[in-house]
Every structure is written in structure tokens, then in C-alpha cells.
């Protein structure tokens, strides 16, 4: 959490605040999350069923170029809420770990208001 209780995500080794998103961001973030989250959960279930553990086995079931690009759309758009000057080119050039992107999904989903406060 940052000092004003705004949650943050870590990308390329730096903390980025993610305030509550507005329709300007959510029109991209919400439909993409509704697409991505079931795939992430499905991959986890498949890995569990196969008796495999660890994030790599889950990633292998999820990640393809389209998924990665969509994930990038979600995270980049969420970042622009607090950093409207950030360009996609600059974002695409950041040294971001794939796991950092995946971990960011939870925070972004909460800040998009996909879950009610009490349900968090």
C-alpha cells in the first residue's frame, strides 16, 4: 500500500499506485479481465488436476502472445489512471517480469470494482 491507502503494484522493480479506476480505464480493463481471469483460474485448475505445482506449469497452460498482449493492455491502462503521461511504447520497453504482470491482475480487478468492498 502507498501512504494514502492506494494499493500499488510492482513492475520493473518499481511501485506503481493503482487508484480506483474510472470508466476511461475500465472500458478496456473490465472486458479484458472478464476474458483473462477465467483463463488464469482454468489453468490453475488444470495444473492442480494434473498434480503439477508451481507457477510455471500454470503459466505454460495460459500464456500465448494474445494472452500476454491482453495482459499488457490491462496493466498499462490501469497504470495510466495515476500516470496519464505514460506511453505504451515506454511501458512495452520496461523490464517487467511476467509474474509481476500476473500478480498485478488481482489489484487491478479490485480497483476496477469487479468485487464489492465487503467481498474483498
Amino acid at each position, binding site marked *: 500500500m502507498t501512504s494514502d491507502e492506494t494499493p500499488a503494484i510492482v513492475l520493473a522493480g518499481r511501485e506503481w499506485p493503482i487508484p*480506483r479506476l474510472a470508466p476511461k480505464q475500465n472500458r478496456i480493463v473490465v472486458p479484458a479481465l472478464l476474458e483473462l481471469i477465467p483463463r488464469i483460474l482454468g489453468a490453475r485448475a488444470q495444473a492442480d488436476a494434473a498434480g503439477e505445482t508451481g507457477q510455471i506449469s500454470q503459466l505454460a497452460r495460459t500464456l500465448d502472445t494474445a494472452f500476454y498482449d491482453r495482459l499488457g493492455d490491462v496493466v498499462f491502462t490501469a497504470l495510466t489512471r495515476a500516470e496519464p503521461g505514460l506511453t505504451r511504447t515506454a511501458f512495452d520497453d520496461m523490464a517487467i517480469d511476467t509474474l509481476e504482470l500476473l500478480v498485478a491482475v488481482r489489484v487491478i480487478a479490485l480497483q476496477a470494482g469487479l468485487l464489492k468492498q465487503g467481498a474483498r
Partner: protein
Amino acid sequence: MTNDPTITIAGREWRIPPLAPRQNRVVLPGLMRLGKEPAERYETLLDIVFAALTRARPSITREEFEDWPIATWELVESIPVIAKQTGLLRSSFDKLRTRETLMVRQAHHEEKTLALSPSKGEAPDWDALIAQYVNFLPGTTPDYWEDALTAPRLDAMQKEWRKHPPLSLLVAGALGYRPRPRNADPLEELLRLFPNGKLRLN
């Protein structure tokens, strides 16, 4: 103090009075469109909620609305309230069907309908409805009805007109007036001009 229900948007409560055609033109088709692709669904949610908010707060701009921290669940939870305030959908929002009471029967010809006779699942023809009101109530303007024709008022007027039809309707009925068909079949037009089938030459 009003009894209007409220919705919560961006953490703040907003009053939603019964909607008028200015909002219903956006809200009703939007409600009928919900349930398509997620991206389209989100846009539709925004359109519906923004239109509904402008009923009590006409000065809100779409640009500022798009920048509010609106939780997705706030948009979703506001839909049943907005649907109820259209006055044209069942309050339980279980069936997107227009109310039977909207069927306006002509006083003398039960089989014919006036301007408003939406088939189930279709939004009313607001332009035709407003034209009808302006026609029946001289001195009022289309712009007035655009913001004044709420569903309860519409319901009350239609009930009253069923009991006491407007003068123009009574006169039209007494004179046997039939509107000229548009783009009609030439034969139909001839029959309208010469109803007894006889062509008289002077």
C-alpha cells in the same frame, strides 16, 4: 423530500427520478442490448447510467463522468433501479417486456392503435408519442414533453383519454377521417379517393 430511489456511483448517492424521453431514448434500448459481448456490455452500462444521472443532474458532462472512480459493481447494481424508473419495464427487471398498459386503443376503433403501440420487447416510438401529445394538447411543445413525459404521467393521460377522448379524435371519428397512406399501393390510393368505386366526370 422526494421518494425517488437512489443509486451509488463513485461512492456517492444519486437520486433517480422517473425518467423522461430524453433519458429513455438511451436507457430502454440500452437495457435491451445488455447481455452481448463484455466490451459492448460495459459501454452500454456506462450509457445507461450516465443518461439516468442526467435526469436529476442535467449539467453532468460525459467527460467528467468518465473520470469518476466508478466501481464496476456500482454500475451493475444501479441497473434494476434505473430500469424501474423508466416506468416501462417490470420493476423486478425479470422480463424486459414493455407493459401491456402502454397499448393505447383508439376510442372508436378498438382494433386500431394510436401513436404508441409498442410490440413486446421494443422501445416506444418517442417521436410519435410526443407528436401525439403536442397534437392533443395545443400550447405544449415537443421540447416540453421531451423532459416531462414520464411513464406515470403517460399512463394517467392514456387512461383519461380512453374515458374522455381528445376533441380532435372525436371529430376525426365523427367525420370518418382516415389518414392518407404513405407509399401506399396505387390501387389503395384510388379506392381512398373514390370509395364508392365510381368515377364521376363533370
